């Protein structure tokens, strides 16, 4: 008994630095942010620090800017996640085959993913540059455009170009996940299917896809949450422009806090964010449970 107590004390002693850090840099800011969302923390306001009840939430939810930003965020999330999953699947199927150089390909396919988002953003900003961008050069050579044009000047086009920039970086991650799942597939099942006369398409839809379902769900979950939080790529490529066309929730939150000194509004955005992401996660987890139950 004596000994167990001292073990407990020792455990507490050695974990206290970690606990302190978790409390100081995770829990404390989380709690403060939650408190701010119920207060008036607009720094330039005369009654800063006063209790605001649900007013911040009412204001944000009643503002057109919030819903517009939510819509843009949803589009970005859906479009880029879909693109990455589909492309990732194709790349994984290709890399799952045995041919000369496949090992080399499997290695280099990860390079875009290893590039920091800031660098990736900067890279694509130059590619899209209307004066010197390589995109203009290539499309002109291919005869797709008659003259150099400005790519990031149209709000919706700019959003979709950011989707492409993001998918280029993140598709490899999805591909590697799928590849890992494919590698553990029982080859005998496929051989049996071939003997039974199932074609490649049939094998893909009846065997590969159901087998990959849990992995696809995990990738979807991870990527959706990540996409929803996207900020850096927008900061690098478009800064929310043109005409607010790429102003996603996180960018709006950033502007509220660091340009407009509206800490309470930024906190409210952040917590609405948490609620949305928690909802999405719950949906996916339920789907994951179902698919696993189905498999078992």
């Amino acid at each position, binding site marked *: 008994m004596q000994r167990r107590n001292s073990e407990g004390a020792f455990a507490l002693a050695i974990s206290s630095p970690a606990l302190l850090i978790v409390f100081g840099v995770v829990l404390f800011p989380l709690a403060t942010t939650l408190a701010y969302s119920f207060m008036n923390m607009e720094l330039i*306001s005369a009654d800063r620090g006063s209790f605001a009840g649900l007013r911040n939430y009412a204001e944000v939810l009643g503002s057109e800017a919030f819903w517009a930003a939510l819509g843009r965020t949803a589009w970005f999330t859906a479009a880029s996640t879909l693109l990455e999953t589909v492309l990732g699947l194709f790349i994984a199927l290709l890399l799952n085959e045995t041919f000369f150089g496949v090992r080399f390909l499997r290695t280099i396919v990860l390079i875009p993913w290893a590039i920091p988002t800031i660098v990736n953003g900067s890279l694509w900003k130059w590619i899209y*540059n209307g*004066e010197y961008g390589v995109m203009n050069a290539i499309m002109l050579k291919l005869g797709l455009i008659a003259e150099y044009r400005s790519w990031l000047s149209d709000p919706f086009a700019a959003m979709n170009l950011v989707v492409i920039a993001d998918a280029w970086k993140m598709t490899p991650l999805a591909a590697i996940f799928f590849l890992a799942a494919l590698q553990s597939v029982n080859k005998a099942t496929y051989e049996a299917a071939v003997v039974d006369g199932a074609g490649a398409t049939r094998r893909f839809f009846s065997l590969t896809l159901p087998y990959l379902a849990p992995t696809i769900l995990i990738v979807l979950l991870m990527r959706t949450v990540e996409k929803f939080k996207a900020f850096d790529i927008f900061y690098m490529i478009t*800064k929310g422009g*043109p*005409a607010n066309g790429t102003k996603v929730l996180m960018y709006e939150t950033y*502007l509220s806090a660091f340009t*407009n*000194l509206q800490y309470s509004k930024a906190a409210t955005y952040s917590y609405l964010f948490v609620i949305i992401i928690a909802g999405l996660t719950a949906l996916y987890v339920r789907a994951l449970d179902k698919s696993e139950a189905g498999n078992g």
Partner: protein
Amino acid sequence: MTNFGRILATAAASLAIAAAGAGAVEINALFMKQAGYSEADVTAMTEEYAKANPGVKVNLTFVAYEELEPKILAAAASGGYDVVLGDCVWPPKFSKAGIVLDVTDRLKAVDVKDIFKGALDSVSYNGRYYGMPWLNDCKYLFYNKRMLKEAGFANPPATWEELAAQAKAIKAKGLVKYPLAWSWAQAECLVCDYTAISEGFGGGMVGADGAPALAAPANVKALEFMVQSLADGLTNPNSTEMIEDNVLQTFVAGNAAFALNWTYMYAGAKDPAQSRIAADVGIAPIPGSASRKSATVNGGMPLMITKGSKNPDEAWKYILYLSSKPVQKKYAANALPIWKSLFDDPAVAATNPEVVAVSKIQYDYIRNRPQVPYYGELSTELQARIQQALLRKTTPKAALEAVQSVALKLAAKK
């Protein structure tokens, strides 16, 4: 000396420095890495100050412009930094948010009449002062001398109408595809260009009574001018995604006849290593209209003392030193002084004769972006709405009326 000996010597030297610094007053100062006085300049100024004031130790931090504001916000209350460099649009909101000290009384000992009015105005809010102007800057009209000459123009335009006419002629002659390049991306630089243009048209974003006047007829006219220049193919369509650096790149590549930019573009455009048009660079006051001869936008940066500073007196002494006439004169090559009297000094005039000559005129027409505490939100709204007009998603009038209604709401908030 052996490696070991070198290490020992370095260690001894740093010990000596540490000992000298012990017991001294420490000031932490936050500066910017970009344009104007370079990092080396500020370090040299500070070393000179430390030499003359052995009891004071100044620690310098340099960050990118984008990092300045978050750093100031995070450190102001605790006094993590005593002296901070800020943008000229921040003093009103910083003063209202209680982030920086009121220096009105301290400024009484300073010959403020000799400071350019535009620079001084940028640190004032409600009749009080919240900083000392330091880095002096405004936008100018840059033009390609060769293109103007080949199109038959002896002088740069004096009005916006004239500029459009010259641009049309230059385009018609095939001298350049898009004669005008602007920093019209959705960012602060868009509001800078818009301030210069709208003020030049006789407009202004704040009325004489201090109330928002975003949708004033002259402002609408200015925005219509901007939209029309795009429609006429005079303005480079990439302008809506360009910031100042892109304007510089376009101009030095010979892809523009006219461009607005800060002083730093002069050095870049004149440098044959990065400019194809080094011999053709012209600089002039920004055009105006029948109602106003010229207007430019203030891009100066003041030094401020944070509210949490433990040594505000020492901080102020350091600020006064950095902005003093001898220091500003010595480092005039990278940033022109805030002091009017220095412009008649032959040593200052010699640093950059063409720029000094133009700035003597231009500084009389410096306008500030709205000096209001809610400027951050106003600017965000303005950028988006102006872009909507530029991209033909709405009309100039409707865009500015929308900003006006937001501004009225912001102004009414306590």
